[in-house]
């Protein structure tokens, strides 16, 4: 069971991700340079946060053309689990591995805050260790996390249970007041129809230990690990 963590020029969350999955949770991981296109030895692919290519043009718009992304598409087509965090989510949307777009936060400012994510669907490989409606206390840090899609896509996502996390208040209420970026329906994370590709704006790898404010992010990685280990058996 080995994580492959993709590194684009400008990525900065690869070390935090490696620390969370390897140092804290004890699973193997390697960095994958963006022009590498061989993912054979990996069981889970992480597209971590950062500013790939400086977010020039549009977040993720250049990274999608990196050789590694074609390999990620093939990996995902075969059913391999892929998680895109923050910039990784943006890249997944740009690559059409997930529907919709991440626009500039509605208030036009960068936002670094702790969020409470309400888990909307626990029957996924990313959330099986959470309970329905559980709140995950996880930081976000982005200027462009305002999730938008056309109405039809949104209702499909909602009806299929593809909306995995929503920004909520500390009591689990999903309100427009608590919405940190203007995302439609307070959406913080979605999966693809097949259920093997997750994109989320908040950073689970930044919530890996109590000393740094909380370890709820581990619930996502532990779910992923358990389900991947089981599928490898």
């Amino acid at each position, binding site marked *: 069971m080995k994580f492959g963590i993709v590194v684009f020029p400008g990525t900065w969350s690869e070390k935090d991700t490696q620390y969370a999955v390897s140092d804290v949770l004890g699973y193997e991981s390697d960095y994958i340079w963006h022009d590498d296109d061989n993912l054979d030895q990996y069981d889970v692919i992480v597209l971590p946060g*950062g500013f790939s290519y400086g977010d020039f043009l549009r977040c993720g718009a250049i990274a999608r053309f990196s050789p590694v992304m074609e390999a990620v598409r093939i990996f995902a087509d075969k059913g391999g689990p892929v998680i895109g965090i923050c910039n990784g989510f943006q890249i997944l949307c740009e690559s059409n591995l997930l529907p919709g777009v991440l626009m500039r936060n509605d208030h036009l400012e960068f*936002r670094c805050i702790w969020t409470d994510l309400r888990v909307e669907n626990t029957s996924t490989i990313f959330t099986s260790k959470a309970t329905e409606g559980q709140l995950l206390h996880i930081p976000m840090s982005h200027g462009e996390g305002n999730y938008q899609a056309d109405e039809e896509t949104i209702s499909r996502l909602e009806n299929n249970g593809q909306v995995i996390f929503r920004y909520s208040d500390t009591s689990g209420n999903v309100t427009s007041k608590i919405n940190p970026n203007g995302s439609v329906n307070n959406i913080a994370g979605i999966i693809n129809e097949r259920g093997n590709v997750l994109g989320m704006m908040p950073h689970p790898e930044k919530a890996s230990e109590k000393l*740094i404010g909380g370890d709820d992010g581990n619930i996502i990685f532990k779910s992923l690990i358990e389900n991947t280990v089981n599928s490898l058996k």
Partner: protein
Amino acid sequence: MTVSQQTLDEIALSRTEYEMIIDRLGREPAPLELGLFGALWSEHCGYKHTKALLRTLPSSSKRLLVAPGAENAGVIDLGDGLAIAMKIESHNHPSAVEPFEGAATGVGGIIRDIFAMGARPIALLNSLRFGQPDNARTRYLLNGVIGGISSYGNCIGIPDVGGEIFFSDSYNGNPLVNAMCVGLIENGKVASASAREAGDLLFLVGADTGRDGIHGASGLASKGFEEEAEMRSAVQVGNPFLEKVLIEACMEALELPGVVGLQDCGAAGITSAAIEMAERSGMGLKLFIDRVPRREKGMTPYEVMLSESQERMLIAVTPGGETQVFELFDRWDLDASVIGEFELGNNVKIYDEGEQVCSTPVITLTDSPEYKLASSKPAWLDALQKVNMNAIPMPNMPPIKVMLKMLGSPNIASRFPIYQQYDYHVQTNTVIEPGGDAAVLRLKGSKKGIAISTDCNSRICYLDPSIGASIAVAEACRNISVTGAAPIALTDGLNFGNPETPDVQYQLTESIAGITRAADAFKIPIVSGNASMYNESLGSAIFPTPIIGSLGLLEDAEIHATVGFKSQEDIIVLIGTDSCWDEINDIAGSEYLELIHGKVEGQPRLDLDLEVRAQEVCRKAIKAGLVTSAHDVSDGGIAVAIAECSIIGGIGAVITKALPKRWDAGMFGESQSRILLSLDNKNIDQLESIALSHNVPMTIIGFVKGDSLVFGDSLSIPLTVASEAWQNGFNLATSE
């Protein structure tokens, strides 16, 4: 041929200095040479008015690995093979002209100083000063500066964990933007900005060189400026993505056997970087200026030498090592060019297309003139200090109104609206986030942690530059101590007006003396620093602002204290004083005096011995696990400190001591050396015995209780009301 006054003005050299150059060279300098002198003898690079004073700063410590001034930043040992490189640097003038890029490139510049030491940058802090926020120009500068810091810092993946922001008329038109960076060095791998032997090659890596930033050091930063629009071309433009890639590539390059030195290319560009490297290496240097990759055609050697294009570094490489360097930078899609070669000798020789255009002794260039400063106390200062505080009338509003006004003051209100625009979690080390007295970071792979902070109350420095500077050190250390960490090193960002005027000379001299006295009292060194002069606009100097950045060491990052009250019924204790309330003289230079009465006057006081002892008591109490919260009492006095502990902790407080007749002074006086603790009743005896053994007074002032702030019998404010004033104050004050 005599050089024109206009040429000299452009590079900020005086006629006397020009004659000194002729005297040293034995000839007239060539135009290119004159440009080099202008840059290296600028106040910004040459420290003409400050270097004599800076030598007097304490720099000895058994923890010191790299002495101040020896390299790009000082380095301090933490034990366990870990060391910290840290430095603060100003980018005031560029930010006054173009706030977004000025602030952004200020962040970029200080980061390069840190990774030039082989240190992985792990934290940024920003110490900012602006004019009054009700002014449209201030709001433009404020938004630009915060936007620039946010844009650069967030992109580059270094957490921005602290700093300060302060508003005062004195900074109208001349904001201060000081950025501090802290880097971690593992396994003793400190890098040096020098070559090892003759024949070593000089690489320029990173960005291409353009016409941006020419005369940034000599022109913009080294004289007063009124026609700021004309200076806009002297401001550089930053590219944080390029710098992020450059950091990774340079950190990898330091692992290559052929790489022997790394140097930041900052103020005065290649001129300063390459010539300082030659000086440090004790060698001569040949520079092939035509090999510098350009952003635009037609640049002259003068322009290439003086460009301050960002995101460039110099690397010294032993012959034979160049292939690996080229390969590495190619992998990161970065340019790398050999632009020079170190040689035996004393001269820097510059070649353009095979022709030698300059050959000048290195030492002549780097040994800038040194000026002695007068230091007679101005009469106006005497008058200000002697103002009798008893003459200040009682406020014409009730205590609750004053309290809410204080909590909403832009100098006191919550800074959350700013720091939520900075990423303070990245690298996952942040134990205490911004908003406390100091940030605390854990160090992975070790039990240890560090605390970092910046501080300077410039109002106090204006009223007494010497005591004010000591207080800046005391507060910067107190911020550290209230987390439980022991202060171990300081960096200083000296921001002053025109050093050619007697008043500023007095302020400078006294401030350095004040820093020295306080650092000696804490027995800690100043490991690095920066001096920014000529901070004035429309003829009047800013308040003297010697910003102190402080570093503390926590032996165990798990054992620390935070600001917020934690538990109902905990006892609230004030250490450092035997009285709950301040006296009338303690409102000297306070936020209260300026906000309510519109005055900056009086004589500040500091008992350094008490300060050192009080902080020690605090640290011991935290280490022994006695206290549940700790907070520095500073701007806004005891009443504001209590309110902050309550608001942040979400629990009220009942202060049992009755308010004095001068309740304004009692609540909002700003006497020093006070720390507010809360603790369980069962620990009070132990705290008392620690305080007693250090001869530090303490007084029990009340309880953590309920959901209101209650002061004696006379004042009660619902916590929600106080919280709203404090949370919204900043946005209210800075919106139209």
